[in-house]
């Protein structure tokens, strides 16, 4: 039994079958990659996991509980964090403030209406945030207005915001798209390290095969809304169908 169990999920947009009969099981503390051609339904699948979309059919279980019917913030509180395909950060806030918000969020869903004490007095939260920023190499940018960063930096910030929540399941939608090679490598290292250090499960969508093959323990290939194959990276690399429909020369 994996930590994430997707059973028979289907989703239609009008006449378009974006997902059908998707079955997926992600084992705890592994990295599962989802690849597939553009428009295969990868992001749609992720959206169904975090409550942005509600699947028409099927079930999604996380940690033994169904996520369906819960709102995004409740799902997050269950331990799922997500990095988006186009960075979603608090553009009006500084980098450091961006990091503080997830720290203020309570896992148990209770509210902190601390309206009187000051942010500065939250010493250990501040420390945690700085440490995390250091890990993603962004400590020097902590006072920057986050909207005016280059996009690669926004990506890293968003990832840091998710990681600092110590999620059980981290969902990454093309985390390294648009990142310089050096930073891509850093990211790979960071994710590897985190996976080792913490009890974390990662599901990642990527078109960069270098990233996929460096990180993934298992790979699902999605095509036209249904899983084509699911296997280990080695086997996928050589899979002729995958090669033809997706990898092209990159393989």
């Amino acid at each position, binding site marked *: 039994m994996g930590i994430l169990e997707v059973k028979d999920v289907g989703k239609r947009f009008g006449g378009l079958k974006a997902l059908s009969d998707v079955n997926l099981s992600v084992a705890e503390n592994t990295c599962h990659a989802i690849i597939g051609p*553009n428009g295969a339904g990868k992001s749609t699948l992720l959206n169904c996991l975090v409550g942005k979309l509600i699947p028409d059919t099927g079930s999604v279980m996380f940690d033994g509980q169904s996520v369906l019917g819960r709102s995004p913030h409740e799902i997050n509180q269950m331990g799922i964090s997500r990095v988006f395909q*186009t960075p979603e950060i608090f553009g009006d806030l500084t980098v450091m403030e961006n990091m503080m918000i997830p720290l203020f969020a309570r896992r148990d869903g209770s509210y902190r209406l601390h309206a009187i004490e000051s942010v500065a007095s939250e010493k250990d939260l501040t420390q945690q945030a700085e440490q995390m920023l250091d890990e993603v190499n962004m400590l020097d940018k902590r006072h920057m207005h986050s909207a005016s960063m*280059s996009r690669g930096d926004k990506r890293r910030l968003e990832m840091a915001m998710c990681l600092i929540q110590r999620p059980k399941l981290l969902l990454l939608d093309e985390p390294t798209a*648009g990142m*310089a*090679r050096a930073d891509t490598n850093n990211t790979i290292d960071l994710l590897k390290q985190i996976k080792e250090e913490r009890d974390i499960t990662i599901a990642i969508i990527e078109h960069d095969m270098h990233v996929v093959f460096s990180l993934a323990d298992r790979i699902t290939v999605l095509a036209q809304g249904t899983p084509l194959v699911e296997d280990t990276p080695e086997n996928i690399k050589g899979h002729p169908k995958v090669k033809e429909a997706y*990898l092209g020369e990159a393989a």
Partner: protein
Amino acid sequence: MNVRPDFSKHANHAETAPAFLSVWDMHSYYGESYIVQGISFNVHEGEILALLGRNGAGKTTTLRSIARLDNPQVMKGEIWLDHQPLHTMRSHQAAVAGLGLVPEDRRIIPGLTVEENLQLAQIAPPIGWSLDRLYELFPRLGERRRQEGVTLSGGEQQMLAIARALARDIKVLLLDEPYEGLAPVIVDEIEKTLRHIKEQGMTTIIVEQNAVRALQLADRAVILDTGSIVYDGSAAEVLENESLRAEYLAI
């Protein structure tokens, strides 16, 4: 108005062919922050130029400056396209003068369908490829023509952004990370297209994090670092020269 800036002091402009697009001593600012710090380079007709550099180096800023968008502001410098002074123009005039930009976050217009997004590009003359021809290039778009543009998958949006540029009759194509989020097979496809239109005489500047791919495609490369040009020369040379790559591209 045909006065050409003097480029003789730039060692790398040894070629005798007259530049088709030339940027001379361009300085760009986002508000108070000084980003592009006096860069000059030439692109010849029918050439593909790769513009490379780390995250935040100023590549996007350079392209946006050339496309004459309101932000960043070009405080100093000249930009000439085929004897026309782009630096005196606003973005819509530059577009009419023959400039096409595929912006980095795709900028699909919300509220418009795929087809309307393309039609929009054909309102102001000169008009380029017909819609049919574009759908032929990207069949996926043809299938989705009535869908709202922003609900396309990430990769489909990228296709739409490229198609939208080609829908206009342009002389220079500026591509800001065109491969981002695209499946490897599609990247192959687009690369082919770029080669194809190059043969028909299109001049292209491509910004890409996948430096190796870009360099394989390009004739020449310009490498930016913190807003200044650190390399301007043949693309092949960068590919071959380990130290150059290590120094500026970290690959």
